[in-house]
């Protein structure tokens, strides 16, 4: 499949947050402000691409010895190691960048979308270039949903909700409407 098709497929058709339901925990937690959403989005894209780059050879190694069933443990170990490594290096090399993005890095290890992408690459049988595009697409989709949502959310804070619906319930209902609109894209691929 051409790469553009994968990209469009990831961002619009099955958006990782709105229709595949991955990465909702950070999505609800961080999308309160535009600034933190941009930070989180950039960090997620970076980690997703590098995680795919690392897990691809690891999977080939597992496949050669016929133990694919251990892929979950291997993947998550590699991802956790990578995220912690990036955090240490960033703390030393780029303190200002660490101040802005650093706090979101540990959140990414527990982000379902990252592991979801790596396993998705394996299930769809993508080759190396295709899985990188898939990772980029999913990262963009996550950031798009996050930005879209921080806008919606800052509006929600101000308008008058019944007491029990304030805060997260209102956000979830807004999310359901946005995901309804995203379903409109489902036919194009």
């Amino acid at each position, binding site marked *: 499949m051409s790469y553009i098709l994968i990209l469009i497929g990831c961002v619009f058709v099955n958006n990782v947050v709105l229709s595949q339901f991955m990465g909702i925990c950070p999505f609800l937690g961080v999308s309160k402000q535009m600034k933190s959403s941009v930070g989180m989005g950039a960090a997620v894209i970076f980690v997703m691409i590098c995680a795919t780059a690392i897990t691809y050879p690891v999977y080939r190694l597992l496949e050669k010895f016929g*133990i694919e069933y251990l892929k979950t443990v291997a993947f998550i*170990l590699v991802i956790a*190691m990578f995220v*912690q490594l990036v955090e*240490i290096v960033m*703390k030393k090399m780029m303190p200002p960048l660490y101040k802005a993005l650093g706090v979101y890095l540990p959140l990414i290890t527990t982000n379902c979308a990252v592991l979801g992408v790596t396993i998705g690459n394996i299930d769809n049988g993508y080759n190396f270039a295709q899985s990188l595009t898939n990772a980029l697409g999913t990262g963009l989709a996550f950031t798009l949903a996050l930005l879209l949502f921080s806008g919606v959310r800052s509006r929600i804070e*101000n308008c008058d909700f019944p007491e029990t619906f304030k805060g997260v319930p209102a956000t979830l209902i807004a999310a359901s409407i946005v995901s309804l609109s995203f379903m409109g894209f489902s036919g194009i691929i």
Partner: protein
Amino acid sequence: MEYLVPIAIFAALGILAGVLLTAASKVFAVKTDERTEAVSEALPQVNCGACGFSGCSDYADAIVNKGAECNLCKPGGESAAKKIAAIMGVEVTAAEPEVAFVRCSGDCNHTPHKYDYDGVQSCAACNRFYDGSKLCTSGCLGYGDCVSVCPQGAISIVDRIAKIDKAKCIGCGLCANACPNNLIAVRKISQPVDICCSSRDVGRVTRSICPSGCIGCKLCEKNCEAGAIKVENNHAVIDYEKCTGCGKCAEVCKVHAVRKIM
């Protein structure tokens, strides 16, 4: 034995991860002075910015490296100041704890409303609309901008006016800069008297709007021996250095704008 191969692979992965992480944490160790760590442990991590630095870690860094004062942390108060002084080995004058106070008493049975406000539920928004929904343009609007900002949840809206619970308030001052009419003043706990009004209108106008507003009649100024209280542009102002805490002004004030707080 087909156990061997997976175990070998995973052992290699484990060693790789372990070595990389420990090496990285050694090589890229940021030389944080362990005192900064200890000081930031002592701080209450409220990140309110009352000390003038952006958050507790910044303040801890300033104390250790730039020699900032140890008692600037209002929420931490005495305990934090003592602990930091112990860590830094510096003698510290204990800063007196400060508490926020709303200088307005125009609740809904005092001040009538100009219009029914049904827009965005925030004082800042309401204030932009003909200077607030209350007749008194510099009074408390009661839509809780300060409530949503307060990290300790010390403020509550009681019949459309903000009330601050002195026990919970840590004096961080976040509510003071959230209030569009700047009604909230962070003042030392020991000050006995305060003015529960901030309107600068002329006496005749204030009397028509709010029964407990300060009309600038200078009664308090005449009766205060220490001369601590003065009326400047129709509004009583207290100079706390001179104030002896006798409370004469509170008794004399006919409209109860000046009140005993203790």
